[in-house]
């Protein structure tokens, strides 16, 4: 009986470690991919001539899947508290995405400003709506 409990505990610890590692891999690969994608967008060849971005994309997707597979089911959902740091990150990501979109559609003319600004605003407001949902 005691042995069963100990092995269950060990298994839980291992799962927890794997889960944390996989989440970290996911975060690192996702942010790296976004960053490299942004750079490649503005300076073609800077990344793609040296490194295949698809490798990073595959790591992101696989690690993302693994975070779900190794999710610790016994942990209850807790309320997401979006910190100031997270807001800043969201804000920066929103700016980056808006710039990428503008760069891709600028040939359509002044409308590209409007579209990219709207999308940027939506992304900036996203964490605010998320925390509002949570509080509701």
């Amino acid at each position: 009986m005691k042995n069963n409990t100990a092995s269950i505990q060990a298994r839980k610890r291992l799962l927890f470690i794997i889960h944390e590692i996989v989440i970290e891999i996911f975060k690192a690969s996702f942010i790296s991919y976004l960053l490299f994608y942004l750079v490649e967008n503005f300076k073609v060849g800077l990344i793609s001539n040296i490194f295949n971005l698809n490798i990073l994309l595959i790591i992101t997707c696989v690690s993302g899947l693994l975070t779900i597979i190794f999710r610790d089911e016994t942990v209850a959902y807790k309320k997401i508290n979006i910190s100031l740091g997270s807001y800043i990150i969201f804000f920066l990501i929103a700016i980056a995405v808006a710039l990428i979109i503008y760069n891709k559609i600028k040939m359509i003319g002044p409308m590209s400003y409007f579209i990219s600004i709207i999308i940027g605003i939506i992304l900036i407001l996203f964490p605010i709506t998320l925390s509002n949902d949570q509080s509701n």
Partner: protein
Amino acid sequence: MRIKILIFFKIIIWCLPVILIIYILTQYFVPSGLLEIHYHVEKESKVVKNFAQKESDRIIGTENKSGNKDYFQLITTSPVYFNVIVPRPFSKAEVSLVYQNPDNQPKIQLGVKQPNSAYSYVDMAFWQPILENLPEYWSKIEENNIILWQKDNEYKTEKLSRDLIFSQKKNELDIWKEEELNSLDEKYKSNRIIQNQNISSSYDSEKQVILTKYNNELKTITGEAKIQREVKGQFSHIQDFLDHLPELTGVVQYNYNLSAFLEMPGYKKSTKPIIIDKSIRGSHEIYTYIGKDEDLNFIFTIQDINRHVGEDPFHVQVFNSSNKKISDVIAPDDGETEATGKVYPQRRHQLLLDNLPMGVYRLVIDLTDDDVFIKQIETTQNLIMFKKNIYPTDNPEYSEILGEKQLTPTTIYTNSNKIKIKTSHEKGIQTLRVGSEKVFIDQVHVPQEINLSPGMTTIYSPRNDIIISGDGYFAFSPDQFFNPDFFVTEDLMKVNDIDNFNFIIADYLHAQSNDGWLTAKATIEVPDLYYSQKNGQTMASFIFSLPGLPENNRMLKIKEVDIRFQKPPVTINSFLQKVKSYISNMINK
């Protein structure tokens, strides 16, 4: 403990993208100053594009041997284009080509595309069967790709004599061997009816004695035929040879012009300056000759008619007989860049180069359009010819440039076999005399093609304002004509029997051989190493020129191309300088 393990793994995980970023930054900024690119023909490359795109089919093969993975691409067409994407411009590139040359392609050149879409060439490798298979009595001195072969006539005489003796002795030995073996066969013929083991082994041992004796004798006479001393040349260094040139009828040159060391036969320096006061217009190419202790001295009087939009700098490049650029001078535009027709005062530009070796020099006057008039050329050279085209313009059409100048007909001399003549203005419509024929230029912008008899032809133009182009040279006086292709020595390509000569001097780049593959190298530096921008990427466009392909049905097997780009490495000082200049540029903008 668990937390510590997690922190450890998290650090490693986050270090990986940081390492990747550092790697990408080093690949982009290349702080070491050295970027190496390796292209294998069987693999796709991210940075080498459009390799051999002119080939109708991309044929990749290997030697027909088990396990051989030396892939090559069959090349049947020239040139072989390829583009190389680089992260930033480099000042120097060393290109290596690994290949096989089964059909003895004599010449491979490396070319780099220039801003005007022309290519600047550098030799990579030569292959001449005569030079590759010279008999052993030719000694060889090699200094920086310049090779001097010298025939040792005494060695040759002795060798021929010994070869003759050897041949006679070998003949006699072969006859003796034949006779001995025949006698042996006769001796044992009658005894073969009795199939006896002892008799058979006795025959073999006697035969072996004969063959052993034969081989020993052969070794002896072969040793006697060898000349014990080494092949000797008259000169121990190439500079000795150049300083004390022997009888030139015994000298052959390949890709090396000795005319820099000897004056053109019959050449006399001019005692007073020559003035060509016939105005000409636009780009021209002038050939001239410099004798011993003579400077290259040209004074151009120019004026801009400003009939076209854009700047009109006066750009003159000077090349020597080896096609190496020795001077590049640009005089700026007169300040008027619009097509206003406004004419500013004329300007004089002197091109003076001293301490030049003797030889033929080429002045390329490279202008953006026909706005610039060269109203007068004053020179101390007495041999001046124009290649490919000449555009005399003493015509009322250009009264704003020519002013009160008395406009007289022009006589031009040419050795072209075929010429084209046209005018761009109504005032240029006229009847010319070309040799003994009359040629009526009755339409504007419509060229007339005329075939000429071999030799010198005069072109008489009463009204000028005609563009004459041809496959030869043009001059304003027959005395100014000369043969720019004169060689003081015989060219290897025209030699029937190399044994009639005693010396061969060659600028002979040869490829290095390694494991069945040849490696040819060439280096190109700025300003010839030019980079273009395409789709936001920096690119250098190269070609391998294989003269004669595909007409002569030769082919080349290319295995790989390696390019080493070099620039000064990044130091703290250079980095700070760049940051300073970047900031000051931003402020100035």
